[in-house]
């Protein structure tokens, strides 16, 4: 495998996710304008913050004139789960120069991580780890580009997409396509069940805290099962 092939592998793997991300980008653009954010700032936010659900919240908070500290705290809580992705890919990136680490950290989103991770887990026949950063760069760049284009489209069109198409359903479907084949042990099944149940029970918590706590619950349940068997 060459760096170019690894980059293209990452890029390809994120394409199905763009189907689901694009409508969100368009809707974000529309909501940002409706909240009174200038078009230029609305578009710039997609590169400066580059985090879907946090941008939705920021658009609402900015429109409501919420104080900086509260908005910043809320964004921090929403994006807390990205620390888990950071920990997950950190060992793969340990030997890279700092500019690579900065770039890949900036591009580390739910979708880019999800698309790349099946190719990064150690297994026979998988690309060697020395190309992990190119795979992550491919998926990260693909998602970044798709998010920018769809945001601009939302700001430019200024109208909602037809709801009946169910394009937003592409996101959960792709996550299913990624996660289900990964579940090849009882510990991982328990992880998924615990994370899913807690996410549903805590869905009403503000700032998507439920997602973070559910992921933690899944990790602990899975690791506890492994620990007990040893």
């Amino acid at each position, binding site marked *: 495998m060459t760096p170019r092939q690894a980059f293209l592998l990452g890029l390809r793997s994120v394409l199905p996710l763009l*189907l689901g991300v694009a409508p969100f980008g368009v809707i974000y653009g529309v909501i940002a304008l409706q909240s009174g*954010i200038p078009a230029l*700032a609305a578009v*710039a*936010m997609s590169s*400066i*913050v*580059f*985090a879907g659900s946090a941008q939705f919240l*920021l658009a609402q908070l900015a429109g409501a004139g919420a*104080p*900086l500290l509260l*908005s910043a705290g809320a*964004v*921090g809580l929403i*994006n*807390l789960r*990205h*620390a*888990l*992705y950071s*920990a*997950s890919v*950190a060992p793969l*990136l*340990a030997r890279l120069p700092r500019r690579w*680490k*900065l770039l*890949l*950290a900036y591009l*580390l989103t739910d979708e880019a991580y999800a698309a790349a991770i099946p190719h990064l*887990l150690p297994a026979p026949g998988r690309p060697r780890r020395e190309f992990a950063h190119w795979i992550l760069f491919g998926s990260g760049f693909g998602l970044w580009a798709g998010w920018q284009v769809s945001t601009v489209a939302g700001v430019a069109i200024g109208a909602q997409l037809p709801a009946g198409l*169910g394009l937003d*359903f592409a*996101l*959960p*479907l*792709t*996550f*299913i*396509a*990624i996660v*289900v*084949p990964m579940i090849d042990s009882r*510990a*991982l099944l328990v*992880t998924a069940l615990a*994370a*899913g*149940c807690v996410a*549903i029970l805590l*869905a*009403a918590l503000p700032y998507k805290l439920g997602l973070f706590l*559910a*992921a*933690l619950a*899944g990790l602990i349940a*899975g*690791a506890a099962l*492994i620990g007990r068997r040893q």
Partner: protein
Amino acid sequence: MSIWALMIVCGLITFAIRYSFIAAEGHFQPPDWFVRLLPFVPVAALTALTAPELLLVDGGIELGGGNVRLWAGAMAILAAALWRNTVLTIGIGFLAFHLLQRL
């Protein structure tokens, strides 16, 4: 307060979270129990993102036939388990979603 200042602060916070463990790698040795949790991150985080999308309708758990996303999602899960093919899973999920909506 300027929207630009707000965006830059929030951008820095988001980046700091994503960079945290990547930056720390090699500078400290995380405890064993922490390292043991890491292989479970993809399944735990992505299931936590997906489950509410399938089961919750307007904030409540909805298991009935009217919850099209749940049953289309269940078929996608079955397809993913059987064939382990991304495009096929998404295709079957979408097909089920649209067919069930018309019932």
